[in-house]
C-alpha cells in the first residue's frame, strides 16, 4: 500500500452533464494542478489558502483545454486528509477525458474504485462504519436513505452503540470488581439494577435490529407488486407514477410478459414497483409461466396492488372477485390496495355500483391522472417512517446487523445467567462477548477500560 502517489479520477458520474468535477488527491495534488492550471490572476495554487476557489484555464502546453474553477483543500483539512484539488470543468465527455489524461501523463495515477474513501479511512478521517456509510450515501437515491447515510456518516449510529457499550462496560466493571476484590469492603453489584440494565440494552438492541428491515427497505425501496389482468393499464399506471415512458405499453393483452421493476421516490421514500403479468387462469404456456412469476413477485413484495379495468367489471366482475379472494387467502397479512382503473370512462351510476360491490376500492384513471395522488398517499401510509423522522437510528448495514444480532444473543445469555443466579465470572464471559460485538461496530474493548472504570469510582483498600 503506497500513499506516496497522487491519484486522479472523475468525481461526478461518467457521461455528459452541465459540469463535471475531477478530483486529485495526494502529496503532489496541488503541485500537479499548478503545472496544468493557469489562474486568470496569475496566482500559484500552492500559495493559496485552503478551502479557496480559483478561476482559470487548464492548459496542455500552449493549448487551452477548458475554463475551470479549481478548489484547493490542504491536508489534513480535506476529505481524504491529503492535499486535494477539485477541478470543476464543463461536462463534456471529451473535456473530462482530456483533463484526466493530461494529469495521468504528468505524474498522477488513476484512482482505483473507492480509493479516495480508502485514503480518508487510512488517514483517520472516517471510521469503518462511516466509510461504509459513504458508499451508501453515494448510491442513495431517495431522501430517506440519504438521511440515514448522512446520519451514519456523521457517526450517529456509532455513537448510539458507543453509548450502549459504555453502560455495559460499567456493568462489567462492577462484576469484575466483586470478582477481583472479593476480600474488600466494596459494595457489590446490585443484581436488580443489572437486570433492568440488561432489559434496557436488549430493548435498544432489538429496536436497532428491527430497524434493519426498515432500513433495508429504505435503502432498497419498498417492493410493491402490481397485479391484474392483461391490458388493465398496469403499465400506464406505472408510467403515471413514474411520469415517463418506461414499461411497455400496448393495446394487445399480455404484452408485459417479463416482470419489469422501477423505483420511484414518493414523499421522500423509495418504492420499487414490480409489474407482473397478472394471474388469469390460462392454457397459454408462456402466460402460465408469467402467472407463476407473478406469485413469486407477490412473495417478495411488501404491498400488493390489484388493478382491474372498471369498464370490464360488468362482464369479468366475478372473475376479478375470484382473483382477489385468491390473493387475500394466500397473503392475508400483506397490505392490499384494490384499484379500479379507467374510471374516466364510467358514469356516476356505474361507479356507485362498483363501490357497493367491492369494499376499500380506490378509483383511478392512470391516463388522466385522477386518483394518482391519492394512491401515492395510500402507499406512504403503509410505510412506518415515524422513527426515521424523529432522527432515530436505523441500521442498513448487514455487517452491523450481524454484530447486533450476536450482541443480543450474548445479552440474552447474560439475562438468563442473572435469572439463574450464575456466578459473576461466568456472566462475565457473555458480557465480554457482547462488548466484543459492540466493538466490532465502533471501537475496541480492552481490559484496561474495565480496570480504569473500577479505580475511578470505587474505594479499594488493602
Amino acid at each position, binding site marked *: 500500500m503506497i500513499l506516496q502517489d497522487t491519484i486522479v479520477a472523475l468525481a461526478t458520474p461518467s457521461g455528459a452533464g452541465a459540469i463535471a468535477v475531477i478530483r486529485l488527491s495526494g502529496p503532489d495534488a496541488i503541485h500537479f494542478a499548478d503545472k496544468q492550471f493557469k489562474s486568470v490572476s496569475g496566482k500559484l495554487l500552492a500559495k493559496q489558502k485552503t478551502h479557496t476557489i480559483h478561476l482559470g484555464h487548464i492548459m496542455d502546453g500552449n493549448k487551452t483545454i477548458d475554463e475551470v474553477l479549481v478548489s484547493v483543500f490542504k491536508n489534513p483539512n480535506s476529505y481524504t486528509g491529503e492535499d486535494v484539488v477539485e477541478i470543476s470543468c464543463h461536462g463534456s465527455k471529451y473535456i473530462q477525458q482530456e483533463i484526466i489524461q493530461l494529469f495521468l501523463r504528468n505524474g498522477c495515477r488513476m484512482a482505483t474504485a473507492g480509493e479516495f474513501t480508502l485514503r480518508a479511512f487510512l488517514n483517520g478521517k472516517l471510521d469503518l462504519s462511516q466509510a461504509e456509510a459513504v458508499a451508501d450515501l453515494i448510491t442513495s437515491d431517495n431522501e430517506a436513505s440519504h438521511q440515514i447515510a448522512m446520519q451514519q456518516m456523521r457517526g450517529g449510529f456509532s455513537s448510539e452503540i458507543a453509548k450502549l457499550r459504555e453502560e455495559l462496560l460499567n456493568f462489567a466493571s462492577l462484576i469484575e470488581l466483586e470478582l477481583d476484590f472479593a476480600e474488600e469492603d466494596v459494595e457489590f453489584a446490585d443484581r436488580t439494577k443489572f437486570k433492568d440494565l440488561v432489559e434496557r440494552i436488549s430493548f435498544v438492541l432489538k429496536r436497532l435490529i428491527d430497524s434493519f428491515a426498515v432500513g433495508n427497505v429504505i435503502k432498497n425501496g419498498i417492493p410493491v407488486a402490481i397485479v391484474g389482468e392483461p391490458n388493465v393499464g398496469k403499465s400506464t399506471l406505472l408510467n403515471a407514477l413514474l411520469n415517463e415512458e418506461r414499461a411497455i405499453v400496448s393495446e394487445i393483452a399480455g404484452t408485459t410478459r417479463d416482470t419489469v421493476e422501477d423505483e420511484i421516490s414518493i414523499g421522500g421514500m423509495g418504492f420499487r414497483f414490480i409489474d407482473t403479468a397478472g394471474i388469469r387462469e390460462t392454457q397459454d404456456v408462456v402466460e402460465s409461466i408469467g402467472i407463476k412469476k407473478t406469485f413469486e413477485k407477490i412473495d417478495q413484495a411488501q404491498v400488493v396492488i390489484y388493478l382491474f379495468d372498471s369498464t370490464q367489471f360488468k362482464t369479468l366482475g366475478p372473475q376479478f372477485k375470484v382473483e382477489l379472494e385468491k390473493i387475500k387467502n394466500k397473503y392475508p397479512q400483506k397490505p392490499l390496495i384494490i384499484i379500479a382503473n379507467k374510471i374516466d370512462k364510467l358514469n356516476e351510476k356505474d361507479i356507485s355500483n362498483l363501490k357497493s360491490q367491492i369494499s376499500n376500492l380506490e378509483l383511478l384513471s392512470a391516463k388522466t391522472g385522477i386518483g394518482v395522488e391519492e394512491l401515492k398517499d395510500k402507499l406512504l401510509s403503509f410505510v412506518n417512517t415515524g422513527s426515521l423522522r424523529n432522527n432515530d437510528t436505523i441500521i442498513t448495514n448487514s455487517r452491523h446487523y450481524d454484530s447486533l444480532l450476536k450482541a443480543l444473543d450474548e445479552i440474552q445469555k447474560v439475562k438468563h445467567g442473572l435469572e439463574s443466579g450464575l456466578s459473576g465470572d461466568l456472566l462475565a464471559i457473555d458480557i*465480554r462477548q457482547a462488548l466484543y460485538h459492540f466493538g466490532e461496530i465502533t471501537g475496541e474493548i480492552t481490559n484496561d477500560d474495565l480496570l480504569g472504570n473500577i479505580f475511578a469510582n470505587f474505594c479499594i483498600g488493602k
Partner: protein
Amino acid sequence: MFHVERFNFRSMFNEIYDVIVVGAGHAGSEAAAAAANMGSKTLLVTMNLQNIAQMSCNPAMGGIAKGQIVREIDALGGYSGIVSDTSAIQFKMLNKSKGPAMWSPRVQSDRMRFAEDWRLLLEKTPNLDFYQDMVSGLLIENGRVAGVKTSLGVDIKSKSVVLTNGTFLNGLIHIGDKNFGGGRAGEKAATGITEQLVSLGFDAGRMKTGTPPRVDGRSLDYSKMIEQPGDDKPEKFSYLDITKPLQVQKSCHMTYTSELVHDLLREGFDRSPMFNGRIKSLGPRYCPSIEDKINRFADKDRHQLFVEPEGWNTVEVYVNGFSTSLPEDVQFKALRSVVGFENVKFFRPGYAIEYDYFPPTQLKHTLETKLVEGLYFAGQINGTTGYEEAASQGLMAGINASLKVQEKEAFVLKRDEAYIGVLIDDLITKGTEEPYRMFTSRAEYRTLLRQDNADLRLTPKGFEIGLASEKRLRRMEQKHSEAEKFVEFFATTSVKPEEANPVLESKESSLIKQSDKMFKIFSRPNITIDDMRKFDAVEDYIRENDLDDEVIEQAEIQVKYSGYISKEKNNADKLSRLEYVKIPDNFDYSQIKSMSFEAREKLKKVQPVTVSQASRISGVSPNDISVLLVYMGR
C-alpha cells in the same frame, strides 16, 4: 596445575558464569533457582545474605489472581509454591462460591520460616553460588552484558545478568517529614546501576509503595475483633506431594477504623509526604495508604483492618490496610483509637518508599532488554508490585537467560496459556505508570487460566525446557487421566429415581421419573460433588480407584463447567487470529502517515511482534490496527 592455582589465588571469581542474578528477593531467588536447575552455572549476588526471599510487606502468598500465578510457578518447576506450603500458617481458598476460574488459593506465612526455607532450598540447588556484595554496575562489551562490578571493586564475568533490584535502586524511605536512603527499613539503598543504565540509553522512572506498621500482638485485645480462621479443609500450592496441607492453622482477625481514627490521621496531613508534595511518584491505586483512602473516599466512615500474625511463634503482627507514611506519632495516636488497639505497642512504624524502575516497554517477551543483549530485568524494577508477580518474572528471566546461554529457543507464554503470559505481555506492550498488580480481569481467557489446571497447562512446557522434573510430569498425567476416567464414569453410569430423588429434593432440584445419566444430574447448577457422593456407586468408585481430592475436584470442574470452558476456548481461538499476522522486525512506522502520531510513536517504541500485540498498546486505536492490517497485506 601450578598455573591454575596461581590464577585461583589471584581472583575470587576466575570463571565466567552463565547467569548472574543481582538481588535475592522473590524474583532473584526464582531466577537463580531456574537458571541453576536448568544446568547453567549461576551466581546469586545480594547485599545481605541474611535477607534472602524477604517478605517486605504482608506475610502472605497468593490471593485472587496471585494464587493462580503461584500455582503456575510451581507447575513450571519454580520454588514459590513449595516454600509457601512449608511456611504456611493458614490456608484459604478465596472465592469458592464463584466459578472455578475465580478459586484463588492464599496462605498466611511465617515470615521468618519463609525466608529460611527459601535459603535452604537454594543452598541445596546444584550449580548455584552465592556472594554478598552490592552490585554497582554492569560490565558491557560490544553492546552485550559481560558481567557485574561490585562496590568492593570485584569484577565478575558472566554471559548474562538478571537484574532484580526491587525497591533498592536509589530507594528513599519516607516517614512523615523525615526521609532517608534505604531499600527496606533498616537496609541500605543500592546506587550506581540506574545511573549507568540511563547513560546507556535506558529510560528510568520513579515509583512509590508503602507498608503499614508492625505491632506487638501481646498488646492487642483480640476479643474485640472478628476472628478469621482458615479453611476447614485446607489445600496447598504445590502439585508435588513433597508438601502436605496444614493440620493446624492460625487465625487472622479483623477490625475497623472509625471517624475518630480518620480525624486523628487528618491532623498529620500537613506533615504527610504524600500531601505536601515530597513524594511525587505514583503508588498503586489498589493498595492505597490509609491517608489516601480517607482522603479519596471521604464519605466512608470506616475501613477494614486485617490483623495478621507474622508467624507460628513470633508475637509480631502485621496491620493490613493501615499502610501509611504519616509521622510515627500520628500513626501511633490514630492506631490507638482503633477497636482492640487501645494499648498497642509498635514494633516498627509504617513507611513509604520511592525507588527507580525502568518502563518495561524496553523489554522483549523474554524479559531481555532491547538495548543490551544478555541483560534481563525482573520484578519491581519493571514497575510491578507483589511477591507473586516478581517471582514469576524472575522465573521467566532465569529460564530465558539460561536458554539463551545454551543457545536454545526462547520460552514465551501466551495470554491464553498463563497469567504469567498476560503479565509479561501487558508489561512489555502497555508499559505501566503505576505499580502493576495482577487481576483476573486482566486475562481475556480467565476461565482457561485456573489454579486447578496450571499443571496441565504448564508442566509439559516446564519439562520440555528441562526445569520441571519427570516426576512432576508423571503426576500431572496421572491426575488428569484419573480425572478423565472419573468424568467418563459419570457419563456412562445411570442412577435410578429412588436413589437420586431424595438428593434432588434436598437441593430443590426437579425430580427424575426414570433412570438418568449421572453426568446430567451433576451438570445441574446447584448439585455439587458432595451431593453426588451420596450415591453409592460414586463413593465406591472413589474408594476403589483411590482418588485424591485434586482428581475429584478436577472431574467436578470438567463436568460442571465444560460448556463455559469450551466457549472460552473458542473465543480464544477466534480472537487469536491477529496473533498470526506477524510484523517484520524494525518495521518503519514513520512511513505510515495515515496513523495517528501517538500510535506511530508507541509502535516504534514497543516494536510489537504481531498485529495482535500492537492492538493491545494503549493509544493505538482500532483504526490504526485496520491501517496496519492494510499495510501487512490483509
